[in-house]
């Protein structure tokens, strides 16, 4: 697939335009377009550098502050360690995002396969449209829905989990009432990222070469075997990319977490207990209004940590995709 893309990108330069009526116009237009494209590419790098620079610069007062100064901020631990403050936040952020991915990706692959290979044409169109529609709902709406409608409904489920599976550290009880806990956040975030993961996966599954599918069927494969042998291997790197898009949204989600979670700064695995976790983005939104200048700086330092996590996640995803590309059958 990457080979094809490379060819497509190189095409404009190779293709001559002898049919152009305005002599020389083609060359000028080509040059202008090339500069515009190059400029846009450079702009992205510049923005990235500017964001990194801004975060470092604004976080510096907190990074270089003494422990006594930091401890004077009421919401920073008494030992005044910035790392001790950022650590649980990073843990909570990653935990929420991974939980959301674990819940969302299997369902998303199921929906995408149903739309691309199982559903009748008309139903597939309607479903695809609905999924795209879900992706456009703003996160604050999900937050309100999750906090006001969904959370009270989940109370019984979480209670059952902690009563019957409480021996697993993840479901340690007693389940909090109301269920303003990480598990609820995971469910709402999963619903939020489901559409984007589904939409991208569906597009990728639809790209599976018909020849591969027909070859599999001709060899006597059932539809499920065809999906397993032709569609899934072809779409694997695409699904990983889709998951990373979803992960990005889950990592940075603010409003839904802010409205649903009872925050706390610990490294706890107890997903059903309140006041154990907090994410970076929600914490910034929570503490910013009353923060003094050093407090703002400390919050921006946590933002810097989020920036680094996002970069690392994306680089890891690139690496996974490139490693898999050779086996995907896409080339």
């Amino acid at each position, binding site marked *: 697939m990457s080979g094809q893309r490379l060819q497509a990108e190189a095409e404009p330069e190779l293709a001559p335009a002898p049919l152009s009526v305005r002599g020389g116009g083609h060359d000028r237009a080509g040059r202008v377009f090339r500069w515009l494209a190059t400029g846009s590419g450079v702009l992205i790098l510049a923005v990235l550098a500017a964001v990194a620079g801004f975060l470092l610069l604004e976080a510096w007062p907190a990074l270089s502050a003494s422990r006594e100064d930091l401890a004077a901020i*009421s*919401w920073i631990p008494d030992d005044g360690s910035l790392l001790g403050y950022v650590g649980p936040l990073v843990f909570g952020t990653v935990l929420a995002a991974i939980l959301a991915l674990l819940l969302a990706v299997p369902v998303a692959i199921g929906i995408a396969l149903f739309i691309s290979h199982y559903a009748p044409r008309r139903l597939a169109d309607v479903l695809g449209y609905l999924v795209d529609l879900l992706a456009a709902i703003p996160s604050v709406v999900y937050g309100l829905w999750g906090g006001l409608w969904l959370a009270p409904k989940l109370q019984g489920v979480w209670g059952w989990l902690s009563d019957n599976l409480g021996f697993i550290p993840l479901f340690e009880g007693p389940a909090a*009432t109301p269920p303003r806990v990480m598990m609820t956040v995971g469910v709402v975030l999963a619903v939020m990222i489901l559409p984007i993961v589904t939409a991208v996966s569906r597009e990728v599954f639809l790209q599976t070469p018909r020849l591969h599918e027909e070859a599999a069927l001709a060899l006597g494969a059932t539809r499920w075997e065809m999906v397993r042998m032709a569609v899934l291997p072809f779409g694997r790197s695409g699904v990983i990319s889709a998951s990373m898009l979803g992960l990005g949204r889950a990592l940075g989600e603010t409003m839904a977490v802010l409205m649903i979670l009872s925050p706390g700064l610990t490294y706890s695995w107890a997903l059903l207990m*309140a006041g154990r976790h907090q994410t970076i983005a929600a914490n910034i939104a*929570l503490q910013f209004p009353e*923060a*003094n200048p050093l407090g*703002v700086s400390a919050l921006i330092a946590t933002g810097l940590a989020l920036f680094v996590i996002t970069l690392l996640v994306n680089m890891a995803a690139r690496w996974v995709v490139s490693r898999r590309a050779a086996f995907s059958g896409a080339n």
Partner: protein
Amino acid sequence: MTRRRTALAIALAVAVSAPLAACGSDDPINHPWRPGGSTPGPAAPVAEGDLAGSLTAAGASSQESAMAAWAAGFQSAYPDVVVSYDPVGSGGGRTQFVEGGIQVAGSDAPLDDEELAAAQDRCAPGDVAELPLYVSPIAVVFNLDGIASLNMSPATVAGVFARTITRWNAAEIAADNPGVALPDLAITPVTRSDESGTTENFTEYLAAAAPQAWPYEPSGNWPLDGGQSAQGTSGVVQTVTDGVGTIGYADASKAGSLGTVALGVGDDFVPFSPEAAAALVDASPRAAGRPAASLVVDLDRTSTAPGTYPLVLVSYTLACTAYEDDADAELVAAFLAYVASEEGQAAAASAAGSAPVSPALREQVLAVVEGIAP
């Protein structure tokens, strides 16, 4: 940085206060300046319509709804005046006031010694005035089926929130509530997750009234880790409502249909009411060692005076008794006179559920306001 935050906050303030202000001036019943209602004459030292200009204020978000009501009421009497209030938080308000960026500030806490010295410099040759014009009771609210009110001594409240009393049918609660069928249910305390003046006043009360049961320092940030918490007053009320056996603390005006706790005062139990809150402010002594214009109240949280409600938030209005600009002084004097007037306090009471200040305190405030001179 500060400038950017301020710009953001101003944008927010405009967005938030615009509809509020609209509500205030459209309210036909509670409008203090309505035709045929009480005349603005006695409260305002300057004849109606004489004033023009803009009055900028900033500070505690607790005063936001009250300030919106005051601004609406004042502006409808003086159409050429623009009053703006930027709810940046108490600390931000005090800083901007000391730096001279705003004429009036709102603050949940009095100025500390350092700020007081700087503010005196700012107000020279006048004094800095700290006026307790926003008094609001904080309610302890809970959600138990069929129980609308409970009695609790300070030590019991502290024990519940320190999580040493963990069940609703505990002996301590039962002892204060003879005849009430308390359920055998776990208590879930709900606190504020953001830093707030409400938390600070609540922990101050617990530390003063029940030092044995409450071993923590007063703080704007909830001192215990873990447990339920939510952002803002509405978040706490929502969480208490959604849960079973939950208990929390919130501005009394937002308590809604939740059960409320009558706090132990002496041998009696006093439910929250605006009158009881104002009575505590009256029963408390003035803080010593401050300028004459500074009416800081040293809240007596352990007061045993009958009819006082000890869990009260007092938010101060900071101003100077002298301004460089004559117009500023006139404007501030007229505005504060309106805020302290019965009409102004009634407007805040209906908009924000605050407790109107007592006549005695009003007299003291008006004496300070009359001293504001160019």
